[in-house]
């Protein structure tokens, strides 16, 4: 098998991105001054306009709202770091939600079964993505685009096109319950983020992911099994999509075959805002969580300000691009 390089070369951006950062060790959240600044500024503005933004209730609400996007974003961070991309997340959320819901009717199986089935389904799809990319040598954009369509179709087939409802309270608690006052989805996001942070910064496999994303040829020459490492990234991403699917199904108390449309783009936006390079090798989970938070605060603020949903989309788009732009500028200045 020959090493396949199918990612776009964005040398300039990567050079910029590399500049401020240790690389393999995830110090992404420390170096994201631009992003932190944007977050603080946005929060202050919101607080001045709507003092109830800074109530504990609302902050917990923000966290709850970002949890699904956050979990997806952490997952896709692996793939982007390894130099790939995953567009199938939204569809995987729907598929795994439907699968989990089908096993979650009251009195049928213990909770572990629907959760496990959802996560495993996601992981299987992710692994398939990874295998086709690495063994088949097809560009990740195309492979995951195919998966996006196919998984959506499968979700519709499995559910017969209708939402899967009548779910057990134990299952729906995963979406709406809390533990010690913290919503369970937020706990799940925290667990996923912390584990990923540790893995990427401190575990050998994590370091290899950066190396493969940074320079596949050199990684192979250093004896790394590039194909397995990339496949691992897609598998983790799929598994996290499965978890997000479970949480979403639990929260809306149905397995919706039409859920999750466009989620992949929100997730990728959060990752890129967090400083992970689209061309691989640079970034980390810390930044991703910040990125997801910023998107959450924007959404929440626009809701609080009663901005109509059409305008919300325009404003959100503008803010995402300007946040990244400001951040890149700040870094360029510091390194040049």
């Amino acid at each position: 098998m020959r090493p396949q390089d199918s990612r776009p070369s964005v040398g300039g951006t990567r050079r910029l991105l590399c500049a401020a950062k240790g690389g393999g060790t995830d110090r992404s959240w420390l170096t994201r001054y631009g992003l932190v600044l944007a977050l603080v500024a946005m929060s202050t503005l919101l607080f001045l306009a709507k003092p109830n933004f800074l109530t504990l209730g609302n902050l917990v609400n923000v966290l709850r709202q970002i949890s699904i996007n956050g979990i997806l974003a952490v997952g896709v961070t692996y793939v982007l770091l390894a130099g790939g991309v995953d567009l199938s997340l939204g569809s995987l959320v729907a598929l795994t939600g439907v699968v989990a819901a089908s096993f979650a009717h009251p009195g049928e199986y213990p909770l572990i079964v629907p959760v496990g089935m959802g996560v495993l389904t996601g992981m299987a799809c992710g692994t398939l993505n990874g295998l086709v990319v690495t063994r088949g040598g097809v560009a990740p954009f195309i492979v995951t685009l195919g998966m996006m369509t196919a998984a959506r179709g499968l979700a519709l087939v499995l559910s017969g096109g209708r939402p899967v409802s009548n779910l057990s309270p134990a299952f729906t608690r995963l979406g709406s319950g809390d533990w010690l006052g913290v919503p369970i989805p937020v706990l799940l996001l925290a667990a996923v983020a912390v584990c990923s942070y540790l893995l990427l910064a401190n575990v050998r496999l994590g370091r290899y992911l950066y190396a493969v994303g940074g320079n596949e040829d050199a990684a192979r020459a250093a004896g790394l099994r590039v194909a397995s490492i990339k496949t691992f990234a897609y598998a983790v991403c799929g598994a996290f999509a499965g978890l997000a699917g479970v949480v979403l199904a639990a929260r809306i108390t149905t397995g919706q075959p039409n859920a999750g449309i466009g989620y992949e783009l929100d997730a990728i936006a959060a990752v890129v805002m967090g400083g992970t390079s689209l061309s691989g090798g640079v970034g980390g989970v810390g930044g991703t969580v910040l990125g997801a938070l910023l998107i959450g605060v924007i959404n929440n603020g626009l809701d609080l300000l009663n901005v109509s949903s059409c305008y919300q989309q325009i404003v959100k788009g503008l803010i995402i691009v300007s946040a990244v732009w400001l951040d890149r500028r700040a870094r360029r200045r510091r390194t040049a």
Partner: protein
Amino acid sequence: MAANRHTCDTSTRPYVLEVRGVAKAFAGVQALAGVGLGVYAGEVHALVGENGAGKSTLMKIVAGLEPADAGELWRQGRRVHVRHPAEARRLGMAMIHQELMPFPDLSVAENLLIGHEPAGRWTGWIDRRRLHAAAAGLLDRLGADWSPETRMGDLGVAEQQLVEIARALAHRAEVVIMDEPTAALAGREVARLFGVIGELRQQGVAVIYISHKIEEVLRLADRVTVLRDGRSLGTYPIGTVNRERLIALMVGRELGTTATQQPAREGPVALAVRGLGRAGKFDEISFQLRQGEVLGLAGLMGAGRTDLAHALAGLEPAERGEIWVQGRPVRLDHPRVALDRGIALVSEDRKRYGLVLCLPAQHNLTLANLRRCCRGAFIRPREENRVADERLGALGVRPARRLQPVQFLSGGNQQKVALAKALFTEPQILILDEPTRGIDIAAKADVYALVAELARAGKAILLISSELPELLTLSHRILVLRAGRLAAELDPRRTTQEEILQYAMPAS
């Protein structure tokens, strides 16, 4: 004599290019601290200094690739501002870069004339015939005989370097900057290049020539400017300095004599190769390499030396033939296998195979043997730091540089990291493909000493080099490769550069 900048030359000729008080800092590193430099028309002006002295940075500023923090640029007595490479080109300046910047998927012709393709005035439609004719003319001048339609990515490093040189000539510039143009070239191409430089000088073109090869500098240059730690130590007419003086200026101390090779102790065979072949690359290669031996591999570019190295490192497996490592047959079909058998490669193409440019030096160092700094699956940061201090420190890479992405290290320091990375796998068999490419004279002496020491410690070393003096002093035996086949086995004590070249030249 007190040869000082600007004072040594009594002529009142104006400079075609003058740099005054240029300063530049990168994230806390003062790369240049007030450097001045004046260049006359029709002179070859050499720029020398250790790795990281700031030579490339200074020239990048002149060529509009980096903004300066302070300082002025004067072109033919007029103050100019160069904010972009296109402005430099308009001002008649061209640069050959140390780090090649090819577009691997475009053809050689497209690479050569990128941005200047002969094209319809309004439509922008590229005229392929004229493009190829223009490119062929440029290649011809450098004696390159491949077609302008070749894909750039299919060329080796040396060939890409030639294209890079031809590209600078394409613009008929009045000032041509060459940043280590011969680092990757072998004898014949070097001679060609010198011929071209001679022509340029005749035509009144100013050539700024950066090189670590002192002999070249003494032979080629009219004047030489020495940089150390971002400062200029003065410009000297070439007649006023000699080799020792230049080295002392660059390094700031006297250098010991280069290690001469001890006779090899006859160790057991570490690597045996029989009938190795790969279509279109090399064929019927058989040899033995003993522990404690340095086996030199000579040949012109394209002779298959690097392909052979890649086969032995598992990067591109051979298709025919057998390989034994420490007496056991092996199939080297992945670099992991080769590394596990104790074979490590320092590639000539460090940007592609040697380093992950966006990772810190330290992470590159440990990449091929990360297990060594791990407990279970977990990396032990303290252990990794210690290893980096020890290994990189031994090669003279400063501690502050350990955590910087390697792409921001100077070319020579990158090479040192690549070397340290291969050594960190504790290889029994070390394949060095142009190991001293781009490293300064002090570091080169260190590498020579290192090679001798590794051999003494019983390692088997396959040394590929286009610098014949290097091969002659370091090797115990020399194999000459011609068009993918072994042409001769020579004893370095009894052979000469001329003889090696005779065997290396295609028999036509």
